[in-house]
């Protein structure tokens, strides 16, 4: 074999602004044509490692490099030179998409190399075909869905024929089915081009839907382990580092099945279960499952025949009917662009419905203004940076009360209390800019909570958060729900979250409410999952593999156990 595609030797890096290095002692060889997954908790240095590969480090982010890095047996010279070897697909598809149309965007790298127009058009079409984007070459990014944008992004990198392709969190904003398609697409690309593929991702299980050669686990700036997926799963290191292990694997553990690497547990379709193991799973699935809780009958919020369009003639929501009872914890799920966020925006008055009515506590809510609604329904947008507008945490949280003319002494009391509820007391006098993403998100929750709303809507509470932060945020929401009786609505693409925390799932598809049922039921009905771009979790597949008669029972038992675990954790 010839020399490795990438070789780190005793490599380390410290950002200029940091006191301590972010990467320590990295020794790693990646052979050409390999498919690698890099995973690890938030802040462990995954993206930093990726930036070393594409040259952003050290050329754009200054800092101190130690040790040696060879890419294609050469030392990195410049971002431009490296871009011929390493193609990068960024996490943020909006930032990745720089052209005014898809075609232009795919051509971008070629334009920059002065490729003549005719051959450029030819190559753009070829690349677009490879990812299935050839039908929207003339469309602008603004009316493409998240998944389509990502295809264009991939084509734009592939057109450069780089032998190494780097993907930083390709799945973060995609709905489950689109995410699955993206993983398959990356796999196809790797087979067709023979390129070395490096994927950075929190969603371990989703990436392992297709074959991966080796998994690199990072923690605190070091490489903890490099192993094939099967061994990695069995090693128990994932949980230790705060990365969520595959759901089916946890279920097998609960069921008392002993899993070793030779059973190929890296992917469910390669997993080998003996008859005795299957029997264990079946037995486990027959223990008492989650009880269906009946909800309070009188609705707190009732939406009747709601329809909406941003532009005339293009319905985003049509004829939606929903009743929400006080104290619910409910998830809204569905494909990218199904109208989930739009629905929330109508509830809080950001957008005006074109038809239908909203009734709150028996009274008509439709002609209430945005600030009036905010006192009843708090809406927390996906991106905290769009909600934060004061430099200091205290002023930020106090803003809503001050604008309503509450006295300063009263404001202070309520701010302190709210910050305490959100676990932010010690940041009271901090600047907002010094907080991490997850902490900022909690500040925005405090912004909404301080108005003492009865309903809280969170848009994508966990996107891009690692498992630890994720659990923290959700346990916090759950606490608000159970202890303060606040009704919680979560908009999410995470089926795990939906199963584990929600008692009810509202499934949106193409602007309609497709289904209103307990999550386990909604997710096990193929009619629904297909229409709403959802995906069954691996628990259903495991149930099938083990030969359970009813596929949902395993899920119910599993959720019950999970919830019991949460509760016991909270008690101690």
């Amino acid at each position: 074999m010839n020399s490795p595609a990438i070789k780190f030797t005793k490599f380390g890096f410290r950002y200029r602004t940091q006191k301590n290095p972010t990467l320590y002692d990295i020794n790693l060889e990646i052979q050409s044509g390999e498919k690698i997954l890099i995973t690890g908790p938030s802040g462990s240095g995954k993206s930093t490692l990726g930036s070393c590969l594409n040259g952003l480090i050290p050329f754009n982010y200054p800092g101190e490099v130690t040790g040696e890095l060879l890419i294609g047996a050469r030392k990195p010279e410049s971002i431009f030179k490296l871009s011929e070897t390493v193609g990068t697909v960024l996490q943020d598809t909006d930032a990745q998409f720089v052209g005014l149309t898809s075609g232009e965007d795919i051509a971008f790298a070629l334009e920059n190399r002065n490729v003549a127009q005719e051959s450029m058009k030819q190559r753009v079409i070829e690349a677009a075909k490879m990812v299935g984007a050839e039908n929207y070459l003339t469309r602008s990014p603004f009316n493409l869905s998240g998944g389509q944008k990502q295809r264009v992004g991939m084509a734009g990198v592939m057109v450069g024929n780089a032998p190494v392709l780097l993907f930083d969190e390709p799945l973060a904003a995609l709905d489950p089915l689109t995410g699955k398609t993206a993983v398959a697409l990356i796999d196809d690309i790797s087979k067709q081009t023979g390129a070395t593929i490096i994927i950075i991702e929190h969603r371990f299980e989703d990436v392992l839907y297709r074959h991966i050669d080796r998994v690199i686990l990072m923690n605190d700036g070091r490489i903890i382990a490099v192993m094939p997926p099967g061994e990695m799963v069995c090693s128990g290191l994932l949980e230790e580092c705060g990365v969520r292990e595959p759901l089916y694997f946890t279920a097998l553990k609960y069921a008392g099945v002993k899993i070793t690497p030779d059973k190929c547990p890296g992917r469910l379709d390669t997993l080998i279960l003996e008859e005795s193991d299957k029997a264990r799973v079946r037995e486990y699935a027959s223990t008492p499952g989650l009880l269906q809780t009946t909800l309070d009958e009188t609705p707190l919020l009732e939406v009747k025949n709601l329809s909406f369009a941003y532009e005339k003639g293009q319905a985003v929501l049509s004829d939606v009917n929903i009743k929400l009872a006080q104290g619910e914890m409910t998830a809204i799920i569905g494909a990218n662009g199904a109208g989930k966020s739009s629905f929330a925006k109508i509830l809080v008055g950001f957008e005006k419905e074109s038809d239908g009515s909203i009734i709150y506590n028996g009274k008509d809510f439709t002609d209430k203004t945005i600030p009036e609604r905010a006192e009843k329904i708090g809406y927390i947008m996906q991106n905290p940076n769009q909600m934060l507008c004061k430099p200091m945490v205290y002023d930020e949280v106090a803003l809503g009360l001050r604008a309503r003319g509450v006295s300063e002494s009263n404001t202070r009391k309520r701010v302190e209390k709210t910050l305490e509820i959100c676990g932010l007391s010690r940041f009271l006098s901090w600047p907002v800019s010094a907080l991490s993403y997850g902490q900022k998100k909690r500040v925005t929750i405090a912004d909404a909570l301080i108005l003492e709303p009865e309903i809280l809507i969170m848009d994508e509470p966990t996107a891009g958060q690692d498992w630890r932060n994720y659990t923290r945020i959700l346990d916090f929401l759950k606490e608000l729900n159970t202890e303060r009786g606040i009704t919680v609505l979560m908009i999410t693409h995470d089926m795990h979250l939906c199963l584990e925390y929600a008692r009810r799932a509202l499934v949106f598809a193409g602007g309609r409410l497709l289904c209103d049922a307990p999550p386990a039921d909604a997710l096990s009905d193929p009619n629904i999952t297909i229409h709403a771009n959802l995906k069954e979790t691996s628990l259903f597949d495991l149930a099938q593999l083990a030969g359970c008669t009813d596929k949902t029972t395993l899920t119910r038992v599993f959720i019950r156990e999970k919830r019991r675990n949460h509760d016991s954790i909270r008690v101690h």
Partner: protein
Amino acid sequence: MTVFGYIDKKSPIHTLTGATKLIMTLLLSIASMITYDTRFLAAVIITSCVLFALSRVSLGEIKIILSLIVVFLLINNIIIFLFSPDQGTLVYGTRHELFRIAERYSVTQEQLFYQINVTLKYFAIVPAAIVFFLTTEPGEFAASLNTLKVNYKAAYAVSLAMRYIPEVQRSYHEISQAQQARGIDISKKAPLKKRMAGAVAIVFPLVFSSMDKIQTVANALELRGFGHEKTRSWYAHRRFKVGDIAVIVLSVAAVAWSVITLAINGGRFYNPF
């Protein structure tokens, strides 16, 4: 919601390159800047209205822009009259009073003629500018600028600005809604002071989230090899055809004519009095 309404149609104007239409707009605007000759301005307006008709863009599609400019010109005329009811006399040197309104405000033929000229002058390039805007694909725009020897980075900045306007607009919209939910009032009903405070509350998150965006977009551009070479080719570039050359020649002729009118009129103004 989008403001850059490129309207995709088949017309002789659409087949012209963006560069041609840009040159035309710029030259016409220079020509009508140079002179105040009424006949010339009228000719420019008529020609560019013909171009507009040729472009098959319907009046309905530019309703909003038209009403904006009408309001703008109306107010401008009123203000000019309020400030200098005798600007016409100053310009043309004579005074033929038509009727008197009050005190120093009387309407003279000269003032009327002057204000008609001002209006024509402002309006002269509007049809051409609208045609240029509605019939040029945004992607081709940057390529056009680069063809005109504008540095490709500056040209690309225009394209990128157009790329990000709808997106910044959406986040503006979302930020302003989020702020309203917190009790900040920016509606037209609110008193001026409150509205300004509200405006400021929106600008901060807007600017700071943009600052984050700048770094990520810059990385994205650089990772795909932007800015290293001295030149770049353009996917959306189009070659000059006969029609393009004809339009450019005509536009140059217009500038020449406007200079000639200076000599004929012995100054910028055509004086019928």
